[in-house]
């Protein structure tokens, strides 16, 4: 065996191994693109909203359908955690689960009114920012008369970007509820907050039945 044959005989597999390791590593370390993950999701949401069959269903069924789709890319636990703030750590595991359930329900009822308002508005993706395990995907909701900037703030869970806040025209939903909830928590504590959310849900439920 000639020398260069010998070298390639030994070095070949080594090089191949290095190449394989290098490529798999770079594939693992590369963060997935948040916009690319979010685009099909938002398309699915708008498609569900545009479905003529949806508006014929009873309101409860409508909101359940929508929340089912939204759950794919929204982390309601993270949202609940942030909306409660520093007090979250003082809640028991059971209370945390109970709150997550309640807060999801609140959003479900609060947004059911939006379903009727949807009239084919389009979503345009403008920019994205990534900072470690957090990302912001900026979009424009384009209507006939105006376009509204809507940003989604998300967290990387495994290889999936999950949203935990929606920022509409610079106003963060989570921070807005946070200030209201902190006032209630200060005055009436956690049980008071649960009571108020339950009352709000009942109120919104009544409104839905009326229409």
């Amino acid at each position, binding site marked *: 065996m000639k020398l260069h044959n010998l070298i390639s005989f030994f070095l070949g597999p080594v090089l191949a191994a290095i190449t394989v390791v290098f490529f798999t590593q770079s594939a693992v370390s590369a963060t997935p693109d948040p916009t690319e993950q979010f685009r099909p999701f938002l398309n699915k949401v708008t498609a569900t909203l545009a479905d003529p069959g949806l508006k014929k269903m009873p309101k409860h069924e409508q909101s359940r359908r929508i929340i089912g789709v939204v759950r794919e890319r929204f982390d309601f636990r993270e949202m609940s955690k942030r909306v409660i703030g520093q007090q979250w750590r003082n809640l028991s595991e059971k209370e945390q689960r109970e709150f997550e359930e309640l807060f999801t329900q609140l959003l479900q009822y*609060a947004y059911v*009114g939006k379903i009727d308002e949807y009239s084919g508005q389009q979503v345009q993706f403008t920019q994205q*920012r990534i900072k470690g395990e957090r990302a912001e995907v900026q979009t424009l909701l384009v209507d006939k*008369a*105006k376009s509204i900037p809507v940003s989604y*703030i998300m967290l990387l869970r495994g290889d999936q970007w999950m949203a935990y806040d929606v920022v509409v*025209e*610079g106003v*963060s939903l989570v921070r807005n509820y946070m200030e209201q909830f902190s006032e209630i928590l200060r005055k009436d504590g956690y049980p008071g907050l649960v009571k108020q959310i339950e009352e709000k849900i009942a109120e919104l439920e009544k*409104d839905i039945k009326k229409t």
Partner: protein
Amino acid sequence: MHWKSCRVRSIGWVLGVVVMVFCWTSLAQAVDFLDDESYEKPQADYVVSDPIEPVNRAVFTVNDKFYLWVLEPVATGYSKVLPADIRACIGNFFYNLGEPVRSVNCLLQGRVRDAGLTLGRFVVNSICGVFGLADPAGHEFKMAPVYASFGETLSVWGVGEGFYLVVPLFGSSTVRDFTGTVVDGAAMSSYSPWNDDALTAATAEGAKTVNRTSLHLGEYVEIKSMSFDAYVAIRNGYYQMRSKRFDHSKNEK
């Protein structure tokens, strides 16, 4: 040759550092949603000072009734007469009239580029956009509108914002920002087409308000239905929205 490449490299370094410092300062000014601190504690630019809360709450209730009983019904009727795109054009027209004041405010704040941009928008939209009814500057020339107000100028000059103020028939503001609004309004009335008498000016202001409301019908009621304390929800929204408006880091990049 070696010396030259060295010099090029050192210039590259200096530029890199300058860019980094610049990015850092512009990031530091903004509320960054990607930082966890922005959720944990109120930021420096976001400390709500509301010592006259009982008075504000009373005015809030009056404004609430005025909105629900007068403004929204009028705006709803108006929206049935005029289609949405025409109302958007009317909105553009009023916005365009404010561009010279915005441009001066940009200059007073040292934002020379924005001042030129705003003035450019005014010229383009007044001529090509039929007195500002359309926004060709924004759509065709990629000159996006920028925010500027005298309240912001005062803040750049170091004037503190005083405290939160709910102004009758006007809504959320602060002592500093409402002063700015009055100054901006006075400056605008010096050249606006309806500065002859108070009645015409008030009618124009009313038309502007009704037109704006007609483009945002139902939003207020929705915010109220979703919130636990509408007063706190609106106050929080006002502060958040304003902190985004005062942040021009995006335009400077």
